[in-house]
């Protein structure tokens, strides 16, 4: 339970964890919107997009929970924090979503 105790009065790790959560939920809302728009054209594609969105959100949720725990433990242990892998993953997902959105806009 040590890593769940706040490290500072500014609750840096907790606030950053919440920022991950709302980003994740924005991504889910965005993907489900796209899935809903695809439904009249192809139900299969819509269901597939929805499933991928749910799966992606589950993966990101796990990643962000892990990030929160690892960072909390690092703070309490006096070790340096930060890593670029999770940000790169989320940036790559957004760029992939943008490619899908561009395809929809140009082909629809």
């Amino acid at each position, binding site marked *: 339970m040590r890593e769940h105790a706040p490290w*500072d009065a500014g609750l840096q790790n907790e606030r950053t964890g919440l920022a991950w959560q709302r980003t994740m939920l924005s*991504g889910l809302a965005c993907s489900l919107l796209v899935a809903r728009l695809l439904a009249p054209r192809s139900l299969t594609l819509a269901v597939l997009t929805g499933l991928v969105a749910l799966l992606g959100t589950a993966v990101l949720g796990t990643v962000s929970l892990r990030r929160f725990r690892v960072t909390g433990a690092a703070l309490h242990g006096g070790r340096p924090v*930060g*890593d*670029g892998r999770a940000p790169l993953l989320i*940036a790559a997902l957004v760029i992939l979503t943008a490619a899908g959105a561009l395809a929809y806009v140009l082909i*629809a």
Partner: protein
Amino acid sequence: MSGAPTSKPPAEDRRWPRHVYGVGTEPDPRFTFANERTFLAWIRTALGFLAAGVAVAAVARYSAQLSVEVRLASAVLVGCGLACGLSAWVRWVRNERAMRRGDPLPSSPVLLVLTGVVVAVALVALVVVSFAG
């Protein structure tokens, strides 16, 4: 409050990318967190642009085939989303590097371009809404 600077990174520092974590000294962890939250805010901005672009195309499709203007407007919004997503990562890397090296935080022309595009799209939307129906 134990906000004292953390100790030097241990020898087996596995953080990635190395061209960020291999330079300079450890900044105050609070600044690292702030940089991460700013990155995430840019990601949400990117998602907002993407949703707006897709929504414009989807709403226009209810009444007619997509005209060139609608397609262009949607593509511009989605393009902004793409730019936000890419620059979110680039800004995160540049800010983190600058903080580690003690350099001033870099600025980016993306801000000006995005502001210009948002204002332009808002003006077009205002005209369209004012003269519709």
